[in-house]
């Protein structure tokens, strides 16, 4: 057993920033991560613009910002993009504290390459760095404070005291397969989104929604779970490139005027946005591409074709020259760890890349208030795992702001909470034994359903019926499928290999429990919301409705997931502002 003041589950952007804040507020801190510190999760993969209002960018950060901007205008833009579903109390401190948090990162040595202007923002607000640089900066600060980090250890459930207070978590040491109670006065979840619920995602393998799931099982509310953002044009093949956003970056994002073609060679965007065509918004692009795929006009690997054949070769070469100064694509078409020069040579000869949408971000998550407290005493949540900041859609650059702002604020609040509370060292052994038994039953030799296969089945259902395009009947079908899956498939999961030491199939089985919660929450929430708004698109309710200025909440009611609505938390902007 390990005992600490503040337990932080998840070690990357949000978790690391929270650890620093909690430590500086006087708490003893323990970070636990199922991966490796600075080497897992979503943060390091970000191209990473960090939003601050452009006025502060100029005055505080000394970047070429525009002083006509203000935190208030930034606030409005976030709210507009979120279609007015955002929690405004969270937004108040988001815009107010962003400049301080970025300034601090720069003082700590984070490199800034530029201030960029991305769609949806009225002014240039994206302080352009990289996920790798953000993590290097945070890792240095965590190490300097000698904060303990427990790697390769998965938090499999929260521990609850008899009066329902969160008391830490049960960890599973993945190296040797033993369970270890992690007892804390305050517990903070910072595990990111649940993108692995879909078969294609821009995120790393780790993002399986474990944080949302353990919070939900313990009784915490989840909010806005129907709001999932898709990244429209990612590579589909070969598998090594699956979900890589290179085509979007060089094309529709801010690059070349590329053409998207269906299998008949038709430039289908003319049906959706004849003016902006491929340069339309991410959600319209994703819906359009998915419609082509679902209606049988897709490409061989389940996407559409992105063509540059109409562009002269020397133009494409010159594009690389000027575009590479932005930093996301380097000389020789280097992009992240990839070198796409061979691919681009073929593209210049007329070959079209096959592209499709990939799951990119969860706007929804654990419901928090402006102190980053969840609906359960003793439990905090920050970053992508927490819902409410972005409403129905997220602006580019606001995820990085969220991890820094909520990390700092949540960490400090958790430390204060821990200082005020005694904690509960008297562990409920029966609770721990129940969890252990539940997870150990998956270690079976033969005859059952292999977890990897089960996960793929689940992802397929999620993609086809609760993905980019939804309707009442498809969402009902998901819930029926899930009912059967929980009743008949989960009890039959069998890992094949039965050793407890770093057994990837056992990890898969445990993560499937998380994915089931994520998918059910998406489907239940999406079914209730009978309109289309932001990232949520219902084919049977294509319009946004004034009746739906409400958040949707799901919670665990004695093992059953209940969905209901909740009034939006407002400060300066009222519902009338968002009316159609």
């Amino acid at each position, binding site marked *: 057993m390990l005992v600490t003041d503040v337990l932080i589950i998840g070690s990357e952007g949000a978790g690391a920033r929270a650890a620093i804040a909690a430590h500086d507020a006087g708490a003893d801190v323990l970070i636990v991560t199922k*991966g490796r510190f600075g080497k897992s999760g979503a943060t390091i993969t970000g191209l990473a613009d960090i939003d601050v209002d452009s006025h502060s960018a100029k005055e505080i950060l000394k970047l070429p910002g525009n002083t006509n901007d203000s935190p208030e205008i930034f606030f409005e833009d976030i709210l507009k993009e979120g279609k007015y579903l955002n929690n405004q109390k969270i937004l108040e401190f988001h815009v107010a504290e962003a400049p301080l948090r970025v300034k601090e990162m720069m003082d700590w040595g984070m490199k800034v390459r530029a201030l960029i202007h991305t769609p949806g923002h009225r002014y240039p607000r994206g302080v352009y760095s990289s996920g790798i640089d953000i993590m290097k900066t945070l890792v240095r600060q965590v190490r300097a404070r000698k904060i303990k980090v427990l790697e390769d250890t998965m938090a499999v459930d929260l521990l609850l005291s008899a009066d329902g207070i969160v008391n830490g978590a049960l960890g599973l040491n993945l190296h040797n397969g033993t369970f270890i109670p992690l007892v804390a006065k305050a517990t903070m979840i910072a595990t990111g989104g649940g993108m692995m619920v879909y078969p294609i995602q821009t995120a790393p393998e780790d993002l399986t929604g474990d944080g949302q799931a353990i919070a939900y099982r313990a009784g915490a509310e989840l909010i806005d779970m129907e709001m999932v953002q898709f990244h429209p044009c990612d590579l589909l093949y070969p598998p090594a490139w699956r979900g890589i956003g290179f085509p979007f970056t060089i094309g529709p994002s801010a690059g070349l005027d590329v053409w998207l073609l269906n299998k008949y060679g038709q430039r289908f965007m003319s049906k959706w946005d004849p003016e902006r065509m491929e340069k339309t918004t991410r959600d319209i692009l994703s819906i359009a591409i998915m419609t082509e795929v679902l209606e049988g006009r897709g490409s061989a690997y389940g996407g559409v074709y992105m063509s540059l054949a109409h562009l002269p070769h020397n133009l494409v070469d010159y594009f690389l020259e000027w575009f590479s100064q932005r930093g996301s694509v380097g000389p020789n078409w280097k992009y992240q*760890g990839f070198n796409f020069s061979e691919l681009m040579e073929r593209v210049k000869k007329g070959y079209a890349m096959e592209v499709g949408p990939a799951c990119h971000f969860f706007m929804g998550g654990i419901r928090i208030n402006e102190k980053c407290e969840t609906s359960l005493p003793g439990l905090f949540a920050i970053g992508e795992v927490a819902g409410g900041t972005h409403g129905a859609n997220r602006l580019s650059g606001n995820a990085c702001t969220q991890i820094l702002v909520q990390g700092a604020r949540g960490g400090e609040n958790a430390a204060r909470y821990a200082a005020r509370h005694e904690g509960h060292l008297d562990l409920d052994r029966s609770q721990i034994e129940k969890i252990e038994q539940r997870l150990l039953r998956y270690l079976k030799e033969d005859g059952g359903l292999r977890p990897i296969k089960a996960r793929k089945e689940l992802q397929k259902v999620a993609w086809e019926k609760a993905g980019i395009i939804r309707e009442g009947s498809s969402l009902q079908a998901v819930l029926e499928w899930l009912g059967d899956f929980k009743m008949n498939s989960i009890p039959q999961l069998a890992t094949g290999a039965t050793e407890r030491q770093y057994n*990837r199939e056992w990890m898969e089985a445990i993560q499937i429990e998380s994915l089931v919660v994520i998918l059910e929450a998406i489907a239940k929430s999406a079914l209730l919301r009978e309109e289309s708004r932001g990232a949520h698109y219902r084919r049977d309710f294509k319009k946004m409705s004034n009746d739906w200025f409400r958040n949707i909440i799901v919670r665990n009611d004695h093992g059953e997931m209940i969905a209901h609505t909740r009034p939006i938390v407002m400060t300066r902007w009222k519902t009338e502002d968002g009316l159609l």
Partner: protein
Amino acid sequence: MSDEQRTIEVRIFRFNPCVDKESRHETYNVPYFEGYTVSNVLQYINEAYDGGLAHYLSCRRGICAECIVKVNGKVVLGCMEIVRGDITIEPVTPDRVIKDLLMSRSQDVD
């Protein structure tokens, strides 16, 4: 996908210190898919043969570098290295093996 019938031999270093006295190499026949990386092949083996085969995989884009392995004696990132024929996959530092290809982290965190 044109070469779907072709198979390759993948030899892998196996060692679970909790169970095994010493390490061994196991050979798996894996269908050849154009563009598969070492990590894709390991995932295939996890699915088709042994879910217990330990290796690390997170970012899938050459950033986190924790999937580092030795392939035919050469140190590579598993998620970036394209497989073109028979291969032998081993841990980079056998004395740091936790299990199979999974190594404990080096002290140098940056």
